[in-house]
């Protein structure tokens, strides 16, 4: 069996159980459902709320650099700390946090393979009292944002017009086709349903095994390779608000080693609300058909 391109970014639950309280390790839970942490979490883990702490709460954007530095400093994270992220839904928002850590240049970020689900399924210890680490003595210093990891609307529009990138839509088949405008049970957040013309459909969850861990490299290569992902063409991943696509971005960049892959976090809530934006409806074409 081959290995992931960057196996160092994954740790298993056993590693976390042994190292969660190491001085140079900070474990952070990032959930879709921000109440999950309170129910019980990895001993020593802190929590970041994606909807208040990992975004700009005034304008729609990722966390501004200055606030990112404050968050990490207050979390007891220094520039050399090993940050291990995990969360519910097979690490959806853990990947979102990982993406932002890389945008701001954090060197040692890792994801606990299998996330919260695997930890629970294995019956591992849980703490209910929130961890309260002391802030770092030396303030965290982020790099300037690395936007080579992020796609903005003009880049996506250009890529769509010229077919210069592989667009990977990681939402569900029903969202892709336009049958529904939001994940079942959640509020509709766009005016139009469908997908960006030319996009390929690879729902994010296909990258995971039933236990929440990532599929082996051969399976991932087969899955994405069949949809045109390779080193020869840039890849843009998108979903509804950019968090599911950060999961796929992580898989492509760190597990498969695709160099030129970006996360379009504007995603369908941007594209599907744009006046005049081209939209395609209908089910995904079989792999290999354009």
């Amino acid at each position, binding site marked *: 069996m081959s290995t992931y391109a960057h196996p160092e970014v994954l740790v298993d639950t056993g590693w976390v159980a042994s190292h969660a309280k190491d001085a140079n390790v900070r474990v952070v839970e990032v959930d879709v459902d921000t109440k999950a942490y309170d129910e019980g979490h990895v001993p020593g883990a802190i929590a970041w709320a994606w909807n208040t702490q990992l975004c700009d709460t005034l304008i729609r954007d990722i966390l501004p650099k200055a606030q990112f530095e404050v968050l990490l400093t207050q979390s007891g994270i220094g520039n050399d700390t090993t940050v291990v992220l995990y969360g519910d839904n097979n690490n959806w928002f853990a990947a979102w946090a990982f993406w932002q850590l890389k945008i701001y240049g954090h060197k040692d970020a890792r994801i606990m393979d299998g996330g919260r689900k695997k930890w629970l399924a294995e*019956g591992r210890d849980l703490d*209910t009292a929130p961890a309260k680490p002391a802030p770092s003595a030396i303030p965290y210093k982020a790099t300037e944002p690395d936007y080579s990891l992020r796609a903005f609307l003009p880049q996506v529009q250009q890529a769509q017009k010229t077919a210069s990138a592989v667009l990977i839509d990681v939402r569900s088949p029903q969202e892709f086709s336009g049958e529904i405008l939001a*994940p079942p049970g959640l509020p509709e957040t766009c005016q139009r*349903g469908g997908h960006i013309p030319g996009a390929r459909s690879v729902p994010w969850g296909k990258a995971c095994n039933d236990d929440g861990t990532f599929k082996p490299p051969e399976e991932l290569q087969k899955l994405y390779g069949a949809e045109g992902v390779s080193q020869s063409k840039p890849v843009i991943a998108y979903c509804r608000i950019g968090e599911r696509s950060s999961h796929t971005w992580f898989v492509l960049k760190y597990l498969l080693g695709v160099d030129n892959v970006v996360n379009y976090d504007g995603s369908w809530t941007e594209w599907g609300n744009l006046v005049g934006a081209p939209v395609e409806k209908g089910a995904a074409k079989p792999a290999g058909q354009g």
Partner: protein
Amino acid sequence: MKPEHFSERKVDVDGWQVNLTTYQLGDKWHTKADNVSPGATLVRIVADTREDAESIALARAKKLLSRTQRRA
């Protein structure tokens, strides 16, 4: 504290797939219902028994899912 009796199963709720995750923590049962694709949590319930936790979660999930409109 350790979670016990972890289980996961998929059920159909009015044509939508719902994933029920249940486990016991101490003397309480915790159930989470998510919408499978994409997997976002619909409800999270704590109750005294597995049956109560799952039935309440399913009832609330059903109500939420009824708001989702299918389009042609």
